C-alpha cells in the first residue's frame, strides 16, 4: 500500500527516514528506487548518503548546509514532480547464481543452533510446513522457479534483500529468535517474504535452505565480477538460482579458490515494468 504523501521522521540531527508506504512488494520498492534516482539527479549538495530500502529510504545530510525543514520540502517537491506512476523500462542485469540446496554447511549450522535451542524446528522442514509445501524437493522447485528483484542492499557489505517476482513463488518465514551467532558464508536464507545470500560468515536470523558457492562479496576484488565493485549485486538487478549438486558445488568452490570463477551475468536486458506487472497479474489470476 502506497501512502498518499511521504511520511518523514527525523533520525537524530543528521538523518531523515522517508516512508512511501506499508508493505513488501515490487511496486512499492520500485517507487522507492524511482524517488531515490530523482533525488540523486537533483544533486542536493548537503546530502551525504541515501539508503533505498523495501518501502522507505533514509537520507543522511549535513545539517549545517541544509535544515531538516528545507530538506523535506525539497524531497516532497521532487516526489510531487515524478509522481507515484509505476511504468517504464530500465536496464536490469540478470545474474544466475548456483545454489546447493540443503547442503552440509548450512545443515551443520542449523544443528549447531539446535544444540542450544533443541526445540527449534529444522529450517527446511519449518518452511515446508508454513508454506504448505509437501517436501524439500518441492521447496527447492518453488525457490528456484522465479526471478528475484534485488530490492535493497544493507546490514552487512553486499548483503542483498531479494523479492520473488513470480507471484506464486513467495515463501515466508519468521526470523530466528534469538538470532544465530554465525552463518556460513554464501548461505541462502528466507526471512519474512525476503530471500537473502549471506556475503560472509556473520550472525543472522533467516531460515537456511542452501548455499551459493559463487561469492557475492569480495573484499580483495580478485574475481573478474568484482573489478569495479566489492559487492556483486546492485538494487534493480535480477537474480535467478540454478540448483547444483554437491559435486558441482565443490567444483565451483575450487574455481573460486583458484580465482578463476566467472559469474553468469547477462548485461543486455531491459526490464519492462508495464509488461512485468501485466504478466504478474495474469499469473496471479491463474493461481
Amino acid at each position: 500500500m502506497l501512502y498518499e504523501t511521504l511520511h518523514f521522521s527525523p533520525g537524530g540531527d543528521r538523518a531523515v527516514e522517508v516512508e512511501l508506504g506499508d508493505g513488501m512488494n515490487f511496486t512499492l520498492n520500485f517507487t522507492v528506487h524511482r524517488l531515490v534516482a530523482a533525488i540523486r539527479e537533483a544533486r542536493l549538495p548537503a546530502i551525504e548518503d541515501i539508503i533505498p530500502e523495501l518501502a522507505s529510504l533514509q537520507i543522511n545530510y549535513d545539517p549545517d548546509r541544509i535544515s531538516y525543514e528545507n530538506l523535506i520540502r525539497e524531497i516532497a517537491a521532487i516526489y510531487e514532480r515524478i509522481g507515484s506512476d509505476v511504468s517504464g523500462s530500465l536496464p536490469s542485469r540478470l545474474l544466475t547464481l548456483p545454489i546447493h540446496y540443503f547442503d552440509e554447511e548450512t545443515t551443520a549450522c542449523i544443528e549447531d543452533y539446535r544444540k542450544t535451542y533443541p526445540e527449534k524446528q529444522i529450517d527446511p522442514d519449518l518452511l515446508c510446513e508454513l508454506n504448505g509445501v509437501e517436501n524439500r524437493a518441492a521447496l527447492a522447485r518453488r525457490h528456484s522457479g522465479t526471478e528475484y528483484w534485488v530490492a535493497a542492499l544493507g546490514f552487512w557489505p553486499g548483503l542483498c534483500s531479494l523479492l520473488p517476482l513470480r507471484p506464486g513463488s513467495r515463501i515466508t518465514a519468521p526470523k530466528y529468535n534469538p538470532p544465530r551467532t554465525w552463518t556460513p558464508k554464501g548461505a541462502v536464507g528466507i526471512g519474512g517474504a525476503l530471500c537473502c545470500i549471506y556475503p560472509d560468515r556473520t550472525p543472522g536470523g533467516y531460515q537456511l535452505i542452501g548455499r551459493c558457492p559463487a561469492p557475492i562479496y569480495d573484499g580483495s576484488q580478485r574475481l573478474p565480477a568484482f573489478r569495479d565493485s566489492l559487492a556483486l549485486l546492485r538494487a534493480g538487478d535480477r537474480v535467478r538460482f540454478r540448483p547444483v549438486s554437491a559435486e558441482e558445488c565443490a567444483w565451483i568452490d575450487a574455481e573460486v579458490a583458484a580465482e578463476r570463477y566467472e559469474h553468469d551475468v547477462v548485461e543486455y536486458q531491459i526490464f519492462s515494468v508495464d509488461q512485468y506487472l501485466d504478466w504478474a497479474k495474469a499469473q496471479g489470476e491463474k493461481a
Partner: protein
Amino acid sequence: MSAHGFTVLKPGLETTIQELPGRIGYLEQGFPISGPFDKWSFRQANLLVGNPRDTAALECQFLGPSLRFDQDVVIAVTGADMRPKLDGEAVPMWQTLAVSAGQVLELGAAYIAARGYIAISGGIDTPVVLGSRAVFHMARVGGQALVKDQVLPLGPQSSGAPAILAIPEGSRPCFSTDKTWQIEALAGPNDDWLDPAAVEMFFSAEWSVQAKSNRTGIRLTGPEFSFAGRALNKSSDHGQDPSNIIDHGYPLGAVNLAGQTPIILVNDAPSTGGFINPFTVASAAFWKLAQTKPGDILRFRRVDREEAGQLRAALETMTCAGVTVRV
C-alpha cells in the same frame, strides 16, 4: 631508505586506523561509515601533531598497543587514559611529543574511559578503500585491526622544528569518573511505535552498558518497553515481534530496539535492518558513547534539533586549530 613509518610490537585490543569523515556514499551497498568513535579526542590528537584534523590515526580500545617508531616523528596521545610510556618513562597526554627513530611508545589498559587515540605527524598512509582509510575490521574493509610485527607507512613530514603544543584542560572532553553519563538524544524516527509512557520511561530511566558492546553497537540493560498500536497491529510483512518493522535504514546513533534490548548503533553498525529505532543520540554526543565502559550508567536527556545544532557548534569550536596552546 631512511623513513619507514612504525612497527607494531603489541597490537592491543582491536586497535584500528581511523580517518574522517569515514566511508561516505557506500551505505546503500551495506558499508558502514566507520571513522573514529570519539571525534573530539581524535581531532585534537591530529591538531597536536600539526596534521589536518581529519587525518588517519590510531584508535585504541580498552588496551592500547606498543609501537616502535622507525623514523623521527611527533606524536600525541588523547582520549582514554592508557598511561602512555615512551621507552618506559611516563609521558603526558594531550600534548605534542617529539619521538626519535627507535623509540617505543607503550600504552596500557584504559584507566579512565575506554578509547584512546594516537596521532602521528604525516598521518598513517595506508591505501584508500572506497574513499577512506577508516578500517571496518569485522569485515576487513580498509584493512584489519593491528597485528604484531605489522609495519605501517606514514605520510610526508614537514621540515623544521615541530611546535610543541597542548590542549588546555578546559578544552578536553570531560570523561565521567563516577561511571555515569548524561547522553543527549532526540525522539524518532520510530518513537510513535512506543506508547507515550515508554517514551517518557526511556528519558527517565537508568541504562546499564552491557559487556557485549563494541564499535557496532552499545547494548543496554534497563526497564521493559511498552508499545503503541502501530507496533502491535501491523501487517505480517513487518515480522512478529512488536519491535519488528519492514527492513529500513538505520541512522548513526539510533537507539535500535531488538525485542527488549536497546542497542545504540555506532560507527561500524549495520546500515539497515528489521527493528525499530525509537530514539537517536545527538551527533555531538557520540564521543561520550565511545568512552563508556561495561557497567557504566547512561541517562538520556531529551533535546530537540535546535539544541543538537548548538551542541555541534560547541564541539566544532573545541576541535578547531585555535584550541591548541604552545607549551
